């Protein structure tokens, strides 16, 4: 075998663009050192990455880094969809970061570079064709997030969140790597397609306990990234401690990454007979526990975090149909994978809209705050409140959030196709639980009661920045020029809540996410077609 490979650089174009973005941001920060330029470079790079992925993905499947028939990099329809989503979500998160960066506690250059680096991992993830590429891509996606979560200077909660995330995530990666190694030991293969073929041709491989352990380790390690119960506990702490835009990134791009990695191994590599029951159990636990605990949350981001745990359960649910023989026929499997992808797409759009609305409703640079602090917010910021309500109602799966409704319909449909009626009923009943807490947030927005004057929560990640410091301090080097100033002479230090974010990019992201949610709500076939590719 020749050790010289021909490399299809066109297939790698999206990855080049994403990595180039990171380098560009680094250089821009070094050479120009103006926040506005740095952020613009990151945004342009993300846009270029999305465009590149669309271009390459439109031309049919391309493979490279091949050894015989097995390729480590397969850029097909799914990979293009993932790359576009990751790039656009990164762009969205950049838009949401304005208030945070202006608040001054976060270094702009590092922030944008890490975000772009993470995006690179996400863009290559969908194309990974072997277990090692997959894990490396996933780690490239995750590694910058440890820093991003803890990047806020002087915030204890932020560091605590980063540590939690780091420890849990590293353990998970170790498990996955161990599983991959054991798989290699027992089968001699690492390419996803090769593993799938081996398991189909030699079912006796599954009788070896080592193989079962290896499969379990790989699946369990990846479910940590999805924040599925019982490996979910890091999510609420990390989301709540992280700056809001980073929490948005964690719950959209990072979750998307976990789902894509899990789908890749379940779909191509691992035997459904073994993974099916595990995934069914995880799905049931995840949505039920997520929803039940979310009912008791008092802090906005924690509630969103638990809800996103529950949503991971809905994403996993279609894969649970693989537990039954009826769910393992060719058609049912294809429907299950397509349903999981479709649900993920609907979910990340709605989740981004929800976080954008929370950012818009909160003072610049503040954390998510408590539900009490959102009370009556509809009178102050009616459009942002409407956006949050739409997104949450969509997550609950009810009209007018048609995107969420059709997402639920898709999942239930694929479950019934696979003969897993019981799991469909579990999903259905969980939707009722979900509505209970989403309604609480929506009702609070329009509540006529007085908002709590002072936040009394003991664990705010960072106090809303002193407006005087915002006006004079680090903002000089921050991207103060990227939007209208959030502070004015009318703001007195005694009313931090009045420092409302009037940043245009945040509003633009909220509007864009809401419009996309409405469009895919009325034309869900778009998403279903993309997901089935």
């Amino acid at each position, binding site marked *: 075998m020749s050790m010289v490979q021909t490399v299809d650089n066109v297939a790698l174009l999206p990855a080049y663009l994403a990595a180039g973005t990171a380098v560009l941001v680094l250089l821009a920060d070094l050479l120009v050192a103006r926040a506005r330029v740095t952020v613009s470079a990151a945004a342009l790079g993300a846009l270029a990455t999305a465009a590149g992925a669309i271009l390459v993905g439109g031309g049919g499947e391309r493979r490279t880094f091949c050894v015989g028939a097995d390729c480590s990099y397969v850029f097909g329809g799914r990979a293009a969809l993932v790359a576009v989503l990751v790039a656009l979500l990164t762009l969205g998160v950049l838009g949401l970061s304005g208030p945070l960066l202006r608040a001054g506690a976060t270094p702009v250059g590092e922030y944008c570079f890490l975000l772009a680096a993470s995006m690179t991992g996400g863009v290559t993830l969908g194309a990974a064709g072997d277990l090692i590429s997959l894990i490396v891509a996933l780690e490239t996606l995750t590694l910058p997030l440890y820093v991003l979560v803890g990047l806020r200077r002087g915030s204890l909660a932020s560091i605590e969140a980063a540590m939690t995330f780091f420890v849990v995530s590293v353990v998970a990666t170790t498990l996955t790597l161990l599983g991959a190694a054991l798989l290699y030991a027992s089968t001699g293969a690492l390419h996803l397609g090769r593993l799938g073929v081996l398991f189909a041709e030699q079912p006796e491989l599954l009788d070896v306990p080592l193989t079962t352990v290896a499969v379990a380790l790989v699946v369990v390690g990846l479910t940590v990234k999805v924040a599925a119960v019982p490996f979910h506990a890091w999510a609420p702490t990390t989301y709540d401690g992280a700056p809001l835009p980073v929490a948005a990134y964690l719950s959209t791009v990072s979750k998307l990454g976990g789902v894509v990695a899990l789908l890749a191994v379940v779909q191509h590599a691992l035997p459904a007979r073994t993974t099916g029951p595990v995934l069914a159990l995880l799905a049931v636990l995840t949505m039920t526990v997520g929803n039940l605990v979310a009912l008791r949350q008092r802090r906005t981001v924690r509630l969103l975090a638990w809800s996103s745990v529950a949503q991971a359960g809905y994403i996993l649910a279609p894969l649970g149909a693989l537990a039954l023989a009826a769910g393992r026929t060719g058609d049912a499997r294809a429907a299950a994978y397509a349903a999981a992808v479709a649900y993920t797409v609907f979910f990340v759009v709605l989740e981004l809209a929800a976080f954008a609305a929370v950012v818009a409703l909160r003072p610049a640079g503040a954390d998510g705050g408590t539900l009490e602090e959102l009370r009556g917010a509809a009178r102050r910021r009616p459009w942002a409140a409407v956006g949050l309500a739409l997104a949450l109602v969509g997550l609950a799966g009810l009209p007018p959030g048609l995107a969420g*409704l059709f997402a639920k319909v898709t999942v*239930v449909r694929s479950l019934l196709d696979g003969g897993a*009626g019981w799991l469909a009923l579990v999903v259905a009943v969980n939707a009722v639980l979900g509505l209970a807490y989403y309604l609480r947030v929506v009702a609070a927005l*329009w509540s006529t009661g007085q908002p709590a004057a002072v936040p009394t929560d003991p664990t705010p990640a960072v106090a809303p920045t002193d407006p005087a410091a915002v006006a004079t301090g680090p903002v000089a080097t921050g991207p103060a020029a990227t939007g209208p100033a959030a502070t004015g002479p009318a703001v007195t230090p005694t009313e931090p809540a009045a420092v409302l974010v009037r940043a245009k990019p945040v509003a633009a992201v909220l509007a864009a996410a809401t419009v996309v949610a409405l469009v895919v709500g009325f*034309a869900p076939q778009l998403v279903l*077609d993309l997901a089935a590719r």
Partner: protein
Amino acid sequence: MSGVVGQALLVAVLAVPAVGAVVVAALRHDRAARLVGTVAAGLTLLAALPLVAGGDNGGAGPDPSPAVRPWHQVDLPWVPGLDLRLHLGVDGISWPLVVLTALLTVLCCGYTLWKVPSGGSGRALVALLLVVEVGILGTFLALDLVLFFVFFEVVLLPMYAIIVGWGGPDRHRAARKFALYTLFGSVLLLVGVLVVVTAAGTADIVALTGGTGLARGPQLAAFTLLALAFAVKSPLWPLHSWLPDAHTQAPTVGSVILAGVLLKMGTYGLIRVAVGVAPEGAEWAAPVLGVLAVAAILVGSLVCLAQTELKRLIAYSSVGHMGFVLLGVATLTGTGLRAALIGNIAHGIITGLLFFLAGAIKDRAHTGDLAELSGLRETAPRLAGLLGFAAVASLGLPGLAGFWGEAFAVVAAVRVGGPLWLTLAVLAALGGALTAAYLLRLLRQVTHGRASSPVARLGPGVARAELLTWAPLVLLTLAVGLAPILVLGVAQAPVDALLPGRP
């Protein structure tokens, strides 16, 4: 009437209120917005009425297929991946309900023009009423199972918002209970609908009605899920407990829409979807349904006898009345289904009127406590007279609308025969007597006796807006009571087609 006009009207029935809601929400001027909303609701009613023309009313014919023959229909693709088509149609089963919905919405919007309940702004209320109308009308018009489900869900949150925004003191709890109960029903509906769709490979109600193409197993599973879903909405005892709270706490117009047409989505769904798509399942579950229906009648009536609050009493009376409707459906006979349909319409008209009157009384006297509401006849004779009329209609006096549904539900049960159904018929008749008892008790307490202090302060007058709102309901109560053919004439053929070979 040509097909194109019918189709245009069909689309208009949904599009006009939808566009109206958007316009109302966008307008800044409150009163102008309410006026626009009322006009939109009026246009919807005008579009709904002529749908009956061009319909094939008499020709039942010996050939029972297809079992649903819409007078007009629109069929457009929407989401092929989910078997969802924008398939709308109207026939004799749905048309009376469509007209009732459109009428009650006009009356509610008009009433809001005159008086906005305290809470939010009037235009938001009118916009929400129109959205609710779109959902209800869509449910009645949908001929695609998935579309039916989508419209069924559309109603939920706007109604929640109406209760939370303009309701009584305990509105938050009541609204949450309403939303969660109803969502519980509709997620079961989702699973039931998709069980049918995956088993049969189509979501077309026209093709599915009659149970063709569906094996017994899926039919039983689907009927169980669908019946549970509709039992929550109707509501059927013991799944009714959201109803009294929601109806009591909702503002007057909300209660009218809730009781008048929202509950009918459940009974309509039971007839059109559950019985239509899974007849074998219906046959299998009919005795259970019948027993629960009679339990609802008796429990509803007995609870009413103990009520001390005006709106709550009327709300609970719905449980009993809907019990009669469900008993009619459970018999699975032509007589029973026709009784159910006319019972639906009658309950919508009469209870709508009762809630309007209860709202008027509570607004004037500032209390709904029956003990504090004696002697209404002394100070407000017109109001007392109207309340007497509505109560007497509600208890099923022959000649008024309430009579036909209840009497013929009992007759249908007797005709089915057998010890079970005879017992059910006797118990239901007893329930009818109890209904008379609690309504007469209501009248004795409220209208008769010496005027209590809150009542003594009432003026005798009734506003012109109120009279205009109530008059159509009073007239319809008389009209449907004297000429039930108004409803039954159009429903004859589709009901016969739904139950081939049954009396």
